[in-house]
């Protein structure tokens, strides 16, 4: 196609302004795409269902996800918590229902925690639920080198790992979980942070945003 022809056509629909993403947004989306493609090869959808499939760390913050076994035999607990020799806890989420028992279990194991499950298409309101959350940097790279959410978890089975020692007296750990099911595999997601002050209860509201945690840029 020659220049004249293109100009004639362009003149018929003169879309002059160039739609452009703001730089910050462009960087965020690039970071998102790059962290997605760096996840281990093989999308769960393309594999037969099987347990033990770990996702890599997300560069986006303290949100993280693991795939969990698709088949829940009768008697499979909705969740499981076990203590590791180094004092950390391994949490397995099989079903996102009844967060209270998990919250009670964590409290009995010495973690002052607030736990919520976020169904698909919802999010907590308000977000952020605390005005005194640790910043992303403090939460991911604390001075003592022991972050609350350990990622990747390096567990044998798909699970999350947290370190109770990261929750100091007077602080509250906030954990939000989701479980999504694409018909072949399930993926559990977690968002975790520590609040120095009160934590608002989670009221579920309709949302087409990411379900877990406050929106991007909350700690800017």
């Amino acid at each position, binding site marked *: 196609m020659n220049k004249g022809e293109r100009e004639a*056509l362009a003149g018929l629909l003169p*879309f002059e302004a160039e739609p452009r*993403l703001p730089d910050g947004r462009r960087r965020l989306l690039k970071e998102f795409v790059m962290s997605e*493609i760096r996840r281990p090869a093989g999308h769960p959808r393309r594999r037969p269902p099987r347990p033990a499939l770990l996702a890599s760390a997300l560069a986006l913050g303290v949100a993280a996800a693991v795939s969990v076994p698709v088949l829940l035999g009768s008697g499979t607990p909705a969740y499981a918590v076990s203590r590791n020799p180094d004092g950390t806890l391994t949490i397995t989420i099989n079903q996102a229902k009844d967060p209270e028992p998990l919250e009670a279990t964590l409290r009995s194991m010495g973690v002052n925690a607030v736990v919520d499950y976020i169904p698909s298409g919802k999010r907590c309101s308000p977000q952020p639920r605390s005005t005194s959350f640790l910043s992303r940097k403090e939460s991911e790279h604390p001075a003592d080198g022991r972050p609350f959410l350990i990622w990747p978890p390096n567990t044998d089975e798909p699970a999350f790992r947290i370190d109770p020692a990261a929750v100091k007296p007077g602080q509250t750990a906030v954990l939000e979980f989701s479980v999504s099911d694409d018909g072949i595999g399930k993926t559990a997601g977690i968002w975790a942070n520590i609040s120095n002050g009160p934590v608002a209860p989670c009221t579920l509201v309709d949302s*087409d945003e990411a379900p877990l945690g406050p929106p991007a840029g909350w700690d800017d």
Partner: protein
Amino acid sequence: MSLRARIRDGDAEAFGALFEEMERPVFSHAFRLTGDWSAAEDVLSLTFLEAWRLRHRIDADGGSLRPWVLGIATNVARNLRRASRRYHDALARMPRGHPVPDFSDEIAGRIDAAEKLAAIRQAFGSLRREEQEVFALCVWSGLDHAEAAEALGVAVGTVRSRLSRARRKLEKLAAERQQAGGWRQVKGDHDSVVRSVREAKR
């Protein structure tokens, strides 16, 4: 090793360079096809996730990957729902912003520009989907016939004929518009479109 070969072999750094190079053309193309800022952001992300998934299809030899990437973007925009299902989990992790689109602000600030944009969208919308895709690729994204054919996976002759059909329809519309008195005629017809653009600014 060429950028093509590196991406085909799974070199994430090379893929990052492709993102840098193609982000703007892909976003513009997606916005023009969908007319929707947030959908265009989804198309942008999904296009690159698809490009990574399909990287083994890249030939080590060849020129720019621009036609290939814009072809994927066209497919994603056409089947956004299907693509969203495939990447359902990834999209759940996608950072949802509250973008302040400079573009919409700029447009909303100028009523004549908003009217013009609404008129362009209406005329574009009168084309068949295949004609829209060829028009957007060849005219707005600057691909030549052969590149557009590569992007869409169709014969060069098909690109030419779709483009001529598009041209005939648009010329007819332009003639009708002129008879009716230019862009001002559009205002009454598309008041609601103009208003929604303005409201988006609030």
